[in-house]
């Protein structure tokens, strides 16, 4: 249903819609508010599929069979969408009709974990230098390092340990590294909403 009376004078009026494909559809498409919301939603889309293009093999080229139901699911659960964004996409896929395809090839999981580690390395402003992300579906884990020199950007490494770490208690777990060394395993922390 299109509602022309939705408040849409200032940006703040649109905040609740900026991450909701469902609410976006309620704004008249010939108005600026719709374009503003659409632009915001495209950033979520590109943040997912530009970084993990493999997922388009599962969803089809427009990605919408993943994007729309995932965003609705995330909204119901009020997910924060910090660097866990990608991990929640995996969690959703794992309970979706795409589950079999997802689990048939580890490349999807590797891409998701790498994207999440990179996002942490770009956005986190705490004192930790690195993050390790593990998953119950693999013994491999991924490390993201923040930028350590003006000459280099952030770095993401896939670690295939000879002696695997214990699996995280939930689907994903992580721990942060106080220096630019992988020299501790303090145990897995769970992903929070």
């Amino acid at each position, binding site marked *: 249903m299109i509602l022309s009376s939705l408040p849409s004078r200032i940006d703040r009026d*649109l905040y609740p819609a900026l991450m909701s494909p469902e609410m976006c559809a309620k704004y008249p498409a010939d108005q*600026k*508010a719709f*374009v503003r919301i659409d*632009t915001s939603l495209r950033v979520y889309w590109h943040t997912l599929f530009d970084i993990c293009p493999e997922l388009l093999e599962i969803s089809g080229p427009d990605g919408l069979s993943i994007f729309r139901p995932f965003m609705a699911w995330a909204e119901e659960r009020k997910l*924060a969408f*910090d660097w866990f964004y990608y991990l929640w996409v995996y969690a959703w896929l794992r309970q979706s009709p795409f589950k079999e395809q997802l689990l048939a090839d580890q490349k999807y999981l590797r891409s998701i974990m790498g994207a999440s580690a990179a996002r942490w390395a770009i956005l986190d402003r705490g004192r930790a230098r690195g993050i390790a992300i593990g998953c119950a579906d693999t013994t491999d884990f991924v490390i993201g390092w923040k930028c350590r020199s*003006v000459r280099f950007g952030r770095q993401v490494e896939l670690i295939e340990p000879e002696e695997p770490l214990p699996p995280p208690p939930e689907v994903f777990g992580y721990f942060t590294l106080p220096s630019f060394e992988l020299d501790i395993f303090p145990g897995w922390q769970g992903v929070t909403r």
Partner: protein
Amino acid sequence: MRLGFNFTLGSTYDMVKRLIAEGHIDYCEYLVDNFFCVDPDELAKAFDCPIGLHVMYSRFLEADRPTLVDFAARLRDCIDATNAIYVSDHILRFTHEGRAFFHLGEVDYSGEYEFVRDKVLEWQEIVGHRIHFENYPSIMDGGLDAPAFFERLTKETGAGVLFDASNAVCANLNCGTPFEAWRNVIAAAHHFHVAGYRNSIVEPFIALDTHANSLSPETLAFLRDFRSVFDKPGATMTYERDQEIEFEDIVADLKLLRNLFGESQERRHDLVVSA
């Protein structure tokens, strides 16, 4: 007018060095919190030019005080090590009800004025330094209230404005904020940004601040019309480019800016001294 370039990523290191060596820019602006794990002395020595600092993710409107105190301690180390010519930040919304925006939100300039003012006062006190806050590339009509908001904010907090000229062009195209309304803000400002923008994918088109294109004719006309309001002793203008980074395109835009403002007085002075 001193011209600068924004340094956000390690991958443009060699290009920025070349821009400095060839005299296209006079200073460099770090997106400083991207480099909080880099030794501040390395930041100070990385480029042979003055340094400006631009903060992206302080989230000072939303973060709690201990988080801000820790952020400020690291910012302070960078300010001191680089002897920064200015420190700048953004007045932005990063979340709504705890959920992150990926395309950041504009504040409500009328309804939230007191809240923002108090946060600005607190943030400057924590950092222990004057901060210049950047104007948003407004899309919605709240952007009409932005010039008066910044005028009042600077009066009541002692903060400065980092005036982004192309963001004002986006606001002009999107919600009609007149350039004239910014005159006092520009006159009082010493630090500026300028960049390319592009239209939204869908219509009715809105102008989006993408830092991926060359300067638009509208931006250049705005700079020309207000040239004497922008230019003043100590003034800086950072050319921002984060995507589609092509050396020749960037140099072409920097040459347009040089022609428009003339060779920087400070720069000439430096050259005379070093000669």
